């Protein structure tokens, strides 16, 4: 019996490592169910939700701290941040009195923590230890944030005002803005620090801006509801979710061309790519699923039931962010 047990154990281990090879041992996939106020902990080996933990009201976005030791969840309606263990998803601590944190981001020099208040039309700049430095009023419905490599400027898309703004981080003032297509959302700085890519959610394309020249240099047709970005991790390509077309496009950041677009049903939103570059995981909001796409075949290989309106997701063994 003991030998049989060992054989079964070994087989289970092999199966687990074979299917979950992209992830380190014990590493979970962490999904924010914005409609449920919970975090789904999904085991990438079995591709099943193992736990659901209450986290706060309307958690939308999350990101790792610069030292990668904690994962910050922004609870928009709770006005707080919750810190999770990035490996297991367990709650570690809570930072109160962060006003309506929707999209969040650290400047590359780790000096500033920027929280975009989507509902109340503000961009709030905090020091790295969450002391408020400035609340900056914006146009209607500010959305996503990106930074210059030297951390001098934060760019924020403003959805209902059809523009994006540049905020000088040293003076914490809006220094300029440019009009965009309808409802700009995801904003992405190319690794060469030259171009900003903006997902135009109210239309079907990505706009490319030369931010130094303050002008638009290109439009790339992707799909209806072009929304959010994640790096493929090869320093060259970036994925974009088209939430209404139910597809994901891969963009070459050097040639500024759309390389291919593949189907991902259910309203794809935030994404992660595994460290080995073989899988793309995305929250599919409308169908309450976490979707796994095999990047060789470009096919959906799994839909994992999670909570309501799943939005942000994270796992530790993700591809490089550029």
């Amino acid at each position, binding site marked *: 019996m003991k030998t049989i047990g060992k054989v079964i154990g070994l087989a289970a281990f092999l199966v687990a490592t074979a299917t979950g090879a992209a992830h380190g041992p014990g590493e979970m996939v962490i999904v924010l169910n*914005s*409609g*449920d*106020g*919970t975090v789904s902990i999904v085991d990438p080996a079995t591709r099943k939700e193992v736990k659901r933990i*209450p986290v*706060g*009201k*309307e958690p939308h976005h999350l990101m790792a701290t610069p030292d990668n030791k904690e994962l910050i969840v922004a609870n928009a*309606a*709770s*006005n707080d941040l919750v810190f999770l263990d990035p490996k297991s998803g367990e709650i570690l601590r*809570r930072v*109160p*009195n962060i*006003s*309506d944190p929707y999209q969040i981001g650290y400047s590359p020099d780790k000096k500033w923590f920027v929280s975009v*208040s989507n*509902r*109340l*039309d*503000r961009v709030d700049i905090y020091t790295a230890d969450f002391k408020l430095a400035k*609340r900056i*009023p914006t146009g*209607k*419905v500010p959305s996503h944030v990106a930074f210059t490599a030297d951390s001098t400027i934060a760019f924020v898309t403003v*959805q*209902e005002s059809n523009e994006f703004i540049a905020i000088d981080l040293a003076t914490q003032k809006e220094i300029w803005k440019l009009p965009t297509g*309808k*409802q700009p959302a995801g904003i992405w700085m190319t690794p060469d620090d030259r171009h900003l890519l903006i997902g135009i*959610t*109210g239309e079907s394309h990505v706009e490319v801006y030369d931010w130094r020249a303050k002008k638009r240099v290109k439009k790339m047709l992707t799909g*209806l*509801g072009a929304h959010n970005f994640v790096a493929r991790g090869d320093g060259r390509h970036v994925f974009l979710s088209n*939430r*209404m077309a*139910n597809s994901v496009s891969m963009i070459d950041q050097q040639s500024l061309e759309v390389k291919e677009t593949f189907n991902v049903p*259910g*309203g794809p939103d935030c994404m992660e790519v595994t460290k080995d570059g073989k899988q793309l995981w995305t929250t599919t*909001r*409308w*169908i*309450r699923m976490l979707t796994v796409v095999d990047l060789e075949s470009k096919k959906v290989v799994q839909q994992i*039931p999670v909570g*309501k*309106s799943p939005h942000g997701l994270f796992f530790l063994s993700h591809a490089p962010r550029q």
Partner: protein
Amino acid sequence: MDPLENLVLGFAGAFVAAWAQLHATLFESVVQPALFHLGLTTWIEMAFDWTEVFLIGAVEIVLLALVLTALEKWRPVEARKVSPAVRVDVIYTLLVRLGALPLAIFFLLLPLVEGLDGWLRLHDYIPPKIEDAFPALLAHPMASFLVYLVIIDFAMYWIHRAQHRLGFWWALHALHHSQREMTFWTDDRNHVLDMVFTDAVLALVALAVGVPPGQFVLLVAVSRALESLAHANVRMSFGRVGEWILVSPRFHRVHHAIGPGHEGRNHGSNFAVLFPVWDHLFGTASPVRDYPPTGIRDQLTGRDYGEGFWRQQWLGFKRLAGRA
């Protein structure tokens, strides 16, 4: 896990999956394309939530119509047929429970509430929340929801006192009381401006104590169903203990009675919406125990509150202006 637990979890999982599928299909095939063409994609997430409000409302109305109609037939207070007076209440129920009127009021109040909220935050006021005082609630969102439910019901009790006490508010709220053929459909028969005032006060309450967890849509539907039941034309009391715990059709009928419902020192009695304990605590519980006729006394001398939706709304504005 025992087989029964497995079965229950399996059934619940299948139900949630089917519901999610229905919600997603309606949203992706109808609502989302419409928003896109109207240039309203910024509101896409809110629209997804309102799509569910509509779906829950539709299911709720069907269930209420089946169950409460049967109850009303079984033990009616007043035997009657469906009349035009009742039919207009059906229209109110459809407008409210399917989300159309609440959505319109939401967008009317949104700039005011967000303007105030934003201004407060620029002045370093971030709305506190109940969970700050009781951190244990953070790990137990359902308990948190129930605490908010009690607070909101407490606020509703005082709003309701004001609806009867303040002359301008009664001018509008009287429409709700003008139903002399009360049924479970009467719950949503309200003047639109009355709803706006009520929601505005509730928004202020949210700025003072935070917002409840949003995921317990079924519990919200249950509390609304209880409010419908409270208006039903049915002889039903919840017994000696139950009458203290939840508002029954008997308790609420007295609130709608000609006389005890709108006269006396407090301009009425039995004001509670869900939990009658407020009336017992603040001395507004009525000693009346039977099922009196409903309406407003001046209706007996011919005052007209209107029969159709538009006339009722119009007369409400006229009463407000002191011209009806």
